[in-house]
């Protein structure tokens, strides 16, 4: 007999209600930005490769794009610390021009839902092959339709595997002018 079948139904109901109640605290919803896990990317020494970092903004919230339309708005920005001799660059997606109920006549350039930041990774020729961890922070500032939340930083981390460039294709050896018999 399943042991759980011996638990009184009222107790199970109470437990379920309590679990639900814990998620029903007024004002509980806070803005969140999360990053999807990134599989280890293979990057070739001496060449530039792109690693896409996917982020998701919580439902009901928006964050400024990297190029917001006002000098006072805080842009979303990714700062990475790369190991020596690994050169990184960040390319942000275009934001979406949207107006919000608090300012219907003004459009803001924002990210909502899913967005992807492309990171170019170029290990110099001096980098030893192997795995390297790149760490950093995504700085963002979120708002909903009526309020804004202080800037936050989301820790970002991903791994790259530096591999040697494949050897150049071998040329055919020159033909000897001599005739061997």
């Amino acid at each position: 007999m399943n042991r759980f079948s011996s638990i009184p139904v009222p107790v199970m109901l109470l437990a379920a209600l309590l679990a639900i109640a814990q998620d029903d605290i007024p004002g509980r919803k806070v803005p969140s930005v999360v990053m999807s896990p990134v599989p280890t990317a293979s990057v070739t020494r001496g060449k530039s490769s792109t690693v896409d970092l996917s982020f998701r903004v919580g439902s009901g919230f928006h964050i400024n794009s990297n190029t917001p339309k006002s000098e006072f708005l805080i842009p979303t920005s990714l700062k990475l610390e790369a190991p020596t001799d690994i050169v990184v660059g960040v390319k942000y997606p275009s934001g979406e021009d949207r107006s919000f109920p608090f300012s219907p006549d003004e459009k803001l350039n924002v990210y909502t839902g899913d967005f992807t930041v492309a990171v170019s990774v170029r290990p110099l020729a001096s980098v030893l092959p192997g795995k390297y961890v790149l760490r950093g922070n995504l700085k963002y500032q979120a708002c909903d339709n009526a309020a804004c939340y202080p800037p936050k930083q989301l820790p970002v981390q991903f791994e790259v595997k530096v591999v040697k460039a494949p050897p150049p294709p071998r040329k055919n050896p020159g033909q000897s002018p001599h005739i061997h018999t």
Partner: protein
Amino acid sequence: MRRDPIVLILVALLVTFMLAFGFHRARRVSNQIGAPAPNTKGGVAPDFTLQSLDGKTVRLSDFRGKAVLLNFWATWCQPCKIEMPWFVELQKQYGGQGLQVLGIAMDDASPADIAKFAKDLGVNYPVLVGKEAVGDAYGGVQFLPATFYIGRDGKVVDKVFGLKGRGEIEDDIKKALGQGQAVQAQK
């Protein structure tokens, strides 16, 4: 049906744990999210001393006898930008009746940037450079705008989190102007 006492004990422990965890979490979240501290509404507004953008030292208690609209804002807060021009108008409209609007900039921006922002919006009331401790004293201002309406007697009449309509703001100003009027008249 025979009930295994071990299972019953385990369930009882689980329920106790969930209750304890739930209450602890609810209390912690209510403190974190900016739900106001229970003693602010109806209680005396916490006094503070802050520097204004023009370098003056300003205390909330300096305004005792006036109704104070205390607005926490920041330059990065678009909804704040919407209501600030309303405060400018309302300060003009009700200033003669004893309203004093005070802005507290909860910003990392430089005072010069804050001043530029306020000037662009035509702000005609003191803007103070905020400190986290002041926000904490008001229940932890975790999102902006956050506005406290303080009566002439120094007691919090209402507190509003997030952007509200101009009409609601005006209604709260009237309430603040009304509160403590009897005390004021006796002086």
